[in-house]
């Protein structure tokens, strides 16, 4: 559905996007993730025909964004970052205006506006549609922007930072809406907050410093971060001597590399928190439990620690931001 090949965009002497390629299948929800200034918005602007790329190509539904711009624009609904709207217009008037620009026939316009408003929870306070856009709160403005994008029911939705500036309840609502829209739209949306993207998207694209640093489903990316297994166990302490032998017993389990006191968790008197580092990714929880039960240890927590996508994200983007700096230092 969306095909991006070797896309590069220079702003003056700065490469905002540097040779990126990716592919999105029809009906997918794609999270476009990266720190601020990574090139997310630039890529989306090129995809939506707002700006031409310096080199490379992008197509939507097989239509080139540069040479078949008008056709692409008909198939895409784009919500720019910061959701620019005409502040002096009333909500209904604004939506009707865009419906007219979108070639929705006059007799269907009103129904299309009502439907889009309903979907974005704009129909609730009765006078909502009569309010001036400039007087709306951030959350409502965002909803109007989204309703506008849905007016012509485009197969592809491009949303730039759709959750920025929303409160937690609104963020959840927006997430649910994106998930719901994903059933009959291809959606690409950007964010610099991983938690938002991870829960909704079926595909993640990590971008940093104008380059794609990783891509795949959230599960695939998580696989890459797992590494050797690490288990946290909390066992009732039985005096220093007994604790030492306990640690030695645990360390003797097949596949355990080392056992150290866990420093991350909260310490509580009478309890021993241990971090058990494995040599491979194999799950050691069963073995630890069997040992504890055979020895009669009181075990109150046994947990496998999985490397978070967050760590991976920070690690990947950090590497990228270091690289260009190092290159600049050389030059």
């Amino acid at each position, binding site marked *: 559905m969306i095909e991006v090949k070797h896309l590069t965009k220079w702003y003056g002497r700065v490469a905002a996007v540097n040779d990126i390629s990716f592919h999105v299948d029809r009906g997918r929800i794609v999270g476009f993730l990266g720190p601020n200034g990574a090139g997310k918005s630039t890529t989306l*602007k090129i995809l939506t*025909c707002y700006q031409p790329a310096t080199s490379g190509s992008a197509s939507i539904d097989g239509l080139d964004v540069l040479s078949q711009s008008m056709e692409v*624009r008909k198939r895409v609904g*784009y919500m720019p970052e910061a959701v620019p*709207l*005409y502040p002096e*217009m009333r909500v209904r008037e604004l939506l009707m205006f865009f419906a007219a*620009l979108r*070639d929705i026939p006059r007799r269907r316009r009103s129904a299309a506006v009502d439907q889009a408003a309903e979907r974005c929870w704009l129909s609730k306070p009765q006078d909502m549609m009569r309010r001036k856009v400039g007087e709306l709160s951030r959350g409502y403005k965002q909803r109007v922007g989204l309703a506008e994008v849905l007016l012509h029911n485009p197969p592809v939705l491009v949303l730039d930072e759709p959750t920025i500036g929303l409160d937690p309840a609104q963020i959840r609502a927006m997430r649910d809406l994106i998930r719901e829209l994903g059933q009959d739209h291809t959606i690409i949306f950007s964010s610099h907050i991983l938690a938002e993207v991870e829960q909704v998207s079926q595909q993640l694209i990590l971008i940093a410093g104008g380059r794609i640093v990783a891509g795949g489903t959230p599960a695939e990316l998580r696989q890459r971060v797992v590494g050797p297994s690490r288990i946290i166990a909390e066992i009732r302490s039985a005096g220093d001597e007994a604790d030492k032998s306990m640690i030695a017993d645990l360390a003797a389990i097949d596949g355990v590399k080392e056992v150290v006191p866990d420093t991350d968790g909260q310490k509580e008197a009478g309890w021993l928190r241990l971090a058990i580092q494995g040599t491979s990714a194999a799950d050691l929880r069963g073995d630890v439990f069997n040992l504890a039960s055979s020895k009669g240890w009181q075990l109150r927590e046994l947990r496998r620690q999985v490397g978070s996508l967050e760590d991976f994200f920070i690690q990947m983007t950090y590497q990228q931001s270091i690289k260009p700096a190092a290159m600049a230092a050389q030059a």
Partner: protein
Amino acid sequence: MKKCLVLANRELSTYFYSPMAYVIGAMFLAVTALIFFHGLGLLDIPPVFRPGEEASLRSLFEAMAYIMVFTAPLLTMRLMSEEFRSGTIEKMLTTPISDTQIVLGKFLGVMSFYAVLLATTLVFMGLVARYGQPDAGVAVMGYLGMLLLGAAFTAVGIFTSSITRYQILAALVGITILAVFTLLMGPLAVYAPSPVSEIAARAGAMTYFRDFAKGMLDTRGLVYFISGTVLFLFLSVKSLESRRWR
């Protein structure tokens, strides 16, 4: 064309929402009224009513033409620059409308508002008709001239609005360009040395407008104002296109 009308309609209603347009409109009428009764010695415009003489519509039209130097850029200054400043241009340029349609839509919008403004000056016509015998031909040609001049002036205004995101800058540049073509060309045509004076005489907007104000229809005037309009609208489209590449 349908989309141009949709855009024009939005611009027109925006004018009626904003206090700015009323202030500009009121200013236009007030200054016109002032010159109507007192004339303007600086620009050699006599008052419309003079004792013992026929009421002169020419004064009225010339006065309005000069006032348009300020009025047109003030009316057009936000048309494009506000879209750049607020970012709504990003929405405009990603909906299926061409850059030409955007510029034409805005032009039609401001021209509709201008037509309403011109219509209100019919009050002055009423006054002249009540107390004198105005020439119907002069009135018709005068208004035709005002429409043509207004089209060219607003086209210049739209262009200056399309080169900056600051409304004030758009207005100032617009007023400067129009002042050069109206106020400066007159003295240049008289006092400058030979080649410059001849060019100034042909380039000045008032040279052509005076024919209309006298009740004459000169094709040179038609060509001058229409080609000016087309040229500046074309430049506006190009300026808008170039935004994408920056």
